[in-house]
């Protein structure tokens, strides 16, 4: 794929992903989890990654912070102060250990990502101890208190264990852990999917407030489009390992251009009456990502599918300013 540049002025992007690929070897063949994606993220912005299960969004999120080794491509992190560029996928493990303080992740399921045998206090202290942040116990105590305060956990909970807490509070622990080392970049992998709507709203507000205060850069992964729209500056829609559309959050909802995005948007149930919209019901399921054929990944379910779609894989092209779409038929439909 050709270079994809965002036209956000002359500023160097904070993260630049080029031709990133992640394949898994399976018994039945090569699984193309993430297949040749390129994009950039500016400092302090939130990039939303949406798609259905198995589209590669979590794999991509993990590749960004090297929790998975990539098959090909690069993820370049730009340090504005030092003026240096680091390719996360290629640095040595000792450099990576230092870098991990800057890049963090919050996982989806607050029930399984916390060690059930550690108390809230120990869970939040863990990253601080592992990285030898404080020589002095009192400083560490102050920092843990501060973190608990930041994410809205009451001090009386510090000796509780995860099983005693509800999902929302557990997710707050996960967030506190990721904030402990003052990161710059946080991958939020479905952070609110396991929570009820009221708790979900509380966590979304918290994440928003934290970003305002500390200027974090987020990648927000979710299958829930209304949540993604609420938090993101730009949104990338993924289908079967590819980014099919990338645009400003407002424009994506006003002018969805890729047929898959259109179908996805029309499928969201809206909590309102008399919403006039065309329901596009997609036939069939997402095909297997193992040894995908040439051509557009979406062709089997696309209502506009043409001859060219079966032969050539479409590139992500800028069809409108800052609005990228990977579809052969974009100007037509």
């Amino acid at each position, binding site marked *: 794929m050709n270079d994809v540049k965002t036209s956000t002025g002359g500023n160097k992007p904070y993260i630049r992903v080029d031709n990133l690929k992640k394949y898994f070897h399976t018994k039945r063949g090569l699984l193309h989890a993430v297949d040749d994606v390129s994009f950039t993220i500016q400092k302090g912005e939130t990039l939303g990654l949406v798609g259905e299960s198995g589209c590669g969004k979590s794999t991509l999120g993990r590749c960004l912070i090297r929790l998975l080794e990539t098959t090909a491509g690069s993820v370049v992190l730009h340090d504005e102060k030092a003026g240096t560029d680091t390719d996360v996928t290629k640095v040595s493990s000792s450099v990576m250990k230092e870098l991990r303080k800057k890049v963090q992740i919050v996982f989806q399921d607050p029930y399984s990502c916390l060690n059930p045998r550690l108390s809230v206090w120990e869970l939040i202290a863990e990253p601080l101890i592992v990285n030898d942040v404080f020589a002095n116990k009192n400083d560490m105590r102050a920092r843990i208190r501060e973190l608990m305060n930041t994410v809205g956990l009451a001090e009386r909970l510090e000796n509780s264990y995860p099983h005693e807490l509800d999902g929302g509070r557990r997710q707050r622990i996960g967030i506190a852990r990721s904030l402990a080392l003052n990161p710059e970049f946080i991958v939020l992998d479905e952070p609110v999917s396991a929570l*009820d709507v*009221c708790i979900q709203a509380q966590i979304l507000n918290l994440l928003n407030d934290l970003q305002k205060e500390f200027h974090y850069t987020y990648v927000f992964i979710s*299958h829930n489009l*209304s949540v993604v729209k609420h938090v993101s500056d730009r949104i990338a829609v993924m289908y079967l390992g590819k980014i099919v559309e990338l645009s400003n959050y407002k424009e994506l909802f006003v002018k969805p251009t890729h047929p898959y995005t259109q*179908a996805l948007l029309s499928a969201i*149930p809206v909590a309102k*009456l008399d919403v006039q919209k065309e*329901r596009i019901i997609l036939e069939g399921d997402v095909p297997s990502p193992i040894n995908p054929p040439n051509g557009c990944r979406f062709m089997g379910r696309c209502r506009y599918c043409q001859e060219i779609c079966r032969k050539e894989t479409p590139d992500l092209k800028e069809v409108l300013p800052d609005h990228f779409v990977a579809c052969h038929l974009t100007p037509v439909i």
Partner: protein
Amino acid sequence: MDANTQNNLLLEIQDLTIQYITDAGTVHAVENLNLHLGHGETLGFVGETGAGKTTTALGIMRLIPSPPGVVKSGKIIFEGQNLLEKSEPEMRAIRGGKIAMIFQDPMTSLNPVMTVDKQIAEMIKLHKNVGEAESLKLAGDMLELVGIRRERMHDYPHQFSGGMKQRVVIAIALACDPGLLIADEPTTALDVTIQAQVLELMKKLKQQFDASMILITHDLGIVADICDKVAIMYAGRVVEYADKRALYSNPVHPYTIGLFNSVPDLDDDKEALNVIPGLMPDPMDLPAGCTFHPRCTCAAEQCSKTKPAMIDVGNGHFAACPIRAKALGAA
């Protein structure tokens, strides 16, 4: 209730109270629940985790695990008969035959070591007087009805995708033409595009089979799509019950309003969501009076003392909040 709705009544729940009695204390899962459902209606049952939605559904099916579950009081009148007075053999004929249930997770509700045609045929043989060959033929018909090709009837559940598995579960539920279908979060485990397919199918089949439905969900969007009436549950009680149109255009109970505000709006571009402060109360230790009063913005002194009754605020729109009802001039 006028005579017309009385005749049309399929299910009526009166003062249903269900508790789980454990060593740690008594869990008040459902308290004084009143509901009615007419023929052909779809009732949406909305609430957060632990609000008692599933317990109510299991109560109707008489499937509350006991111990620790106990139905303390109340009546569940289905087609004029109280289900709570039925014997176990009578209940077995009703379950699946007259009232069928669709569970949330299709992977755990299907038998992994049995082909899907046999699972559907099992249901048919149990309730209809037909032989093996005939039941398998009917099973194939059911599969075609839910949009699965007949050739796949000898496949095992793991050979199907999540959406297809839920279709199989729907085929089992509808195999004996039940009058009432209880769907407990039928699409929560599915992706949005697959969810749209399954909801479309359920809407179509409900019409075709002329069945009534109770749809348990936490998604107000799904309710807007397919329900006629809505009951909002909070901490074991129904706090608001109304026609869908009335509820969506004019929510009355503060909890319902909070619930609507918590959902990020696709059309709106506001920064922060108006959240309901605090958490759902522990069902072992419910607050006195109105269970919602510690989190409520319009709570008054009386709210912590008296349990609010359901008040009709107009045209069969009930809400358990005297303060708001008064403001609307109904009490």
